[in-house]
Every structure is written in structure tokens, then in C-alpha cells.
């Protein structure tokens, strides 16, 4: 039964003139009604949770299901929201979630990712070289999203999945199209299907001739043992691509824009690169780019923060609100790159679904931030900041475009 819900929807608009701040409603909700009903695009409702402690309690409790087919699971209807087909393990519960996630956890171990740092630096340097060349050849400005933010994670994922060098341009073109808002829906759909076909061919090629990459190891160790199928390997590839691309790309854009707006902080980081690691944690907290969840469905009656959530009811947690909760983060609306507890943020989620690729994301952001500060100390937006298009319409926040000059 669908009844049109009388509640307000999930707030998504930042306060006027403050594109980096979460919707102002969250501040009021944390005080007045920290677990509150919101309407969903399909006319039903779900609980919106805005306090840090309640959000950790929910995400840390597996009785809140991540499976989109669980009764009451709140579907977002937002671009980039939950996809019913080929859900991948991020939309599953234990034990199946645990079984599949553990097939790839070692690929994202801290030491494994640290070993990739020189390659990530090389990728970043080459893209920065290309930006310099464009400028020397007369370009008045460069779109940082297109020139750096999108290609860095795309090339890093190519590396991990074992996409051959000669396919990099094709792969990057397809992944870029998926995230573009300026191309028609038909073209984006065509790119999605072309990418799926590409990944299918890639997995087939790895089956015939395994290499030193994630897909080959999944094939040799799991597919050959009958644990997963050819299609599952494609699913892993698609999940790692989707999870690691748009998120990192948007954090790169917002990170760069933050530094352009805070020259004192930028100078502090240039002078003391040992602060970069903490700065990235603070930027993750401050920007909290996941704007439509995570989402869960209660499978039991559970009391959270004095509110009873019943089995079959949906829950939407507001990561940007948790990360600006003054109960946890002093002066939460300030960007403080030396904040001692910045890493307590839930920008990567919390609980057993916490971002698998977080160590990789951290290294990518650390490398890009340090490199931009060093190589482009005078970088500034090439347009007034009010005209930069922000992704208030998307599940992952950021800038659609970021024209810069220096």
C-alpha cells in the first residue's frame, strides 16, 4: 500500500552562499528531532537520523539490513542511488556480504595501497604536466574536474583491475560519460552498456591470460574454485569502479576548491607536509560527500536514542550531519586541518560496510592535495564561486565543473 507521506523530504540544499555546508535543517533536527520521519520519492516514509551517536549505533548493528529487497528498505530515487540489479556485496547482509567482501579485502590493505603510492604519484604528475601544457598553449582556464579529479581515480582503478594501457583512453572516456550531467540520458545509458560489455571482455581476457591484478586473482582463486561465476567477477569490477571513481573524484574537486579559498591553510600544509594526512581526514569530515545515506531497513524492533524503530521500517542516516555534530566535533563548521579527532568522522560509513577502498582513497587524496599545493601554489577559481555548479541534485556532492587558472 502506498500512501502519500505528509513529511518533508530529505534536505539536500546547502545554506545560501555556503556551498560547503550541509543543509541547515540538520542542525535543528539534531537538537529538536534527531530521529524524524521524512517522505521518500515513492510516497512512503523513512526515519532520518542526524546525530553522530545514533548513526554509529545504527550502522554498527547488522539488524539494520543493507539489502535493498528487505521490506521497508528506503529507495532514494536520486541519481547514483541504489540499483536493484547486480547489487554487489554493498547491498547484501552477512553471511553473503562477509563471504564476498573478504574475497577482495586484502587488495585494499594499508600496506598494499602504500605500495601503490609511487604509481599514484606518477599518474597525478602526468595529469598535472598536461594541465601545465594546456595553460602554456594558451588555455585561459582548465576544468579541474575533467583534467584531474575524474582521471586520477579512473587511472588508479584501471591499474587495480588490470585494464591494459592501450584501453585506458576508452575506459576513461566511458567512465567519464557515466558521470557527466551534460550528455543525454540515452548516451549515458549507451556508455553504461558499453562499459558493461568492456568489463565482460576484460574478464574473458583475464580468464584466458591471468595477470597480476584483482580480476585475475578473483578468477584464479575464486571462480576456478566454483565460489563465484564469470558474471560475479564482472560485478566486482563494476562495484569497485562505481565505488571508487565518483566519490574520489568529487573529493578531489572539493579539496582543491577548499584550499583555493583558504590560502593560510594551504601555506601551512605546503610548509609542513606532515599535516597532509590529518588534513585529508578533516576534508573528508568537512565535505561528507555522501548525501543520500547510507540507508538501512530494520529487521527487528530496535530502540535508538529513545526512538523505537520497528521491523520493516526504513532508515536514512545523514553522514554530513553526523560529521558536523558539535557533541563530537568542536566548532564543527570550521575546517581545521589540525583537528585531533578528525578521523572519528563517518565519511566512509561505519560498521561492517565501511568503505573497503578507504585506504586507497586516502592515499589518492593525500597525493593529489600535496601535489596541487606544490605545483600550483597560485591556483584560483577562474569564475566567481557563485557560478560554480554544485551537485545538489546528486547522491554524491561535489562540483560538476571547476574552472581554474593560475
Amino acid at each position, binding site marked *: 500500500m502506498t500512501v502519500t507521506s505528509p513529511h518533508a523530504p530529505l534536505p539536500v540544499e546547502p545554506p545560501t552562499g555556503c556551498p560547503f555546508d550541509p543543509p541547515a535543517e540538520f542542525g535543528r533536527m539534531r537538537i529538536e528531532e534527531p530521529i524524524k520521519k521524512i517522505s521518500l520519492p515513492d510516497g512512503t516514509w523513512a526515519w532520518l537520523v542526524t546525530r553522530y551517536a545514533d548513526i554509529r549505533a545504527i550502522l554498527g548493528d547488522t539488524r539494520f539490513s543493507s539489502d535493498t529487497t528487505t521490506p521497508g528498505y528506503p529507495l532514494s530515487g536520486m541519481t547514483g542511488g541504489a540499483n536493484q540489479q547486480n547489487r554487489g556485496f554493498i547491498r547484501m547482509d552477512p553471511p553473503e556480504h562477509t563471504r564476498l567482501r*573478504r574475497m577482495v579485502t586484502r587488495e*585494499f590493505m594499508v600496506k598494499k595501497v602504500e605500495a601503490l603510492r609511487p604509481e599514484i604519484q606518477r599518474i597525478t604528475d602526468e595529469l598535472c604536466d598536461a594541465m601545465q601544457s594546456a595553460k602554456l598553449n594558451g588555455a585561459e582556464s582548465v576544468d579541474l574536474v575533467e583534467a584531474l579529479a575524474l582521471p586520477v581515480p579512473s587511472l588508479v582503478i584501471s591499474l587495480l583491475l588490470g585494464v591494459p594501457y592501450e584501453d585506458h583512453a576508452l575506459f576513461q572516456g566511458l567512465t567519464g560519460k557515466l558521470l557527466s550531467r551534460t550528455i543525454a540520458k540515452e548516451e549515458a545509458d549507451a556508455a553504461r552498456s558499453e562499459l558493461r560489455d568492456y568489463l565482460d571482455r576484460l574478464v574473458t581476457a583475464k580468464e584466458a591470460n591471468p595477470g597480476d591484478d584483482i580480476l585475475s586473482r578473483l578468477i584464479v582463486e575464486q571462480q576456478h574454485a566454483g565460489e563465484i561465476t564469470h558474471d560475479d567477477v564482472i560485478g566486482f569490477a563494476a562495484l569497485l569502479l562505481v565505488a571508487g571513481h565518483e566519490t574520489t573524484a568529487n573529493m578531489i574537486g572539493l579539496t582543491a576548491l577548499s584550499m583555493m579559498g583558504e590560502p593560510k591553510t594551504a601555506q601551512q600544509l605546503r610548509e609542513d607536509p606532515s599535516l597532509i594526512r590529518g588534513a585529508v581526514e578533516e576534508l573528508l569530515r568537512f565535505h561528507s560527500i555522501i548525501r543520500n545515506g547510507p540507508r538501512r531497513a530494520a529487521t527487528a524492533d530496535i530502540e535508538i536514542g529513545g526512538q523505537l524503530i520497528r521491523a520493516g521500517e526504513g532508515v536514512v542516516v545523514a553522514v554530513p550531519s553526523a560529521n558536523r555534530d558539535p557533541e563530537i566535533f568542536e566548532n564543527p563548521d570550521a575546517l581545521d586541518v589540525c583537528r585531533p579527532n578528525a578521523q572519528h568522522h563517518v565519511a566512509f560509513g561505519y560498521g561492517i560496510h565501511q568503505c573497503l577502498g578507504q585506504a586507497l582513497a586516502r592515499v589518492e587524496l593525500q597525493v593529489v592535495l600535496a601535489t596541487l599545493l606544490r605545483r600550483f601554489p597560485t591556483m584560483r577559481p577562474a569564475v566567481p564561486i557563485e557560478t560554480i555548479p554544485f551537485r545538489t541534485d546528486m547522491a554524491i556532492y561535489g562540483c560538476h565543473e571547476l574552472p581554474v587558472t593560475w
Partner: protein
Amino acid sequence: MNITLDEDKCCAAGQCVLVAPEVFDQRDEDGIVVLLDAQPPAEQHAAVHEAAAICPAAAIQVHA
């Protein structure tokens, strides 16, 4: 200080390794947490408490 781990809970997020690399490591096969020092010296205690606090799976127990 005495640290115990619940390996079954661990989801291999690796945050403990970032915060306290002298106390925690990850198993090569699957990234699951490995304890390098169950009774670390005092200078590690703050980092261990931090690791336990941010562990997304609550897999690290710190006993006095």
C-alpha cells in the same frame, strides 16, 4: 594494557593500522587484523584507544 581482538568481526577497514602501526597489522591473505603487540608500552596507549574507538566493527577490546 592488554588488547584482545575479535577476528570474526573485523571488516579489514585498516584504520587501526593507520593509527597504531606498531600494534596492529593486516594478514596478507585477507587483510584481517593481526595483533603485533598485545601489551604495548605506555607511549602506544593513546593510539590503541583511538584505534579501538574508530574501529568500524568494534573488533578491538582494550583491557586495563
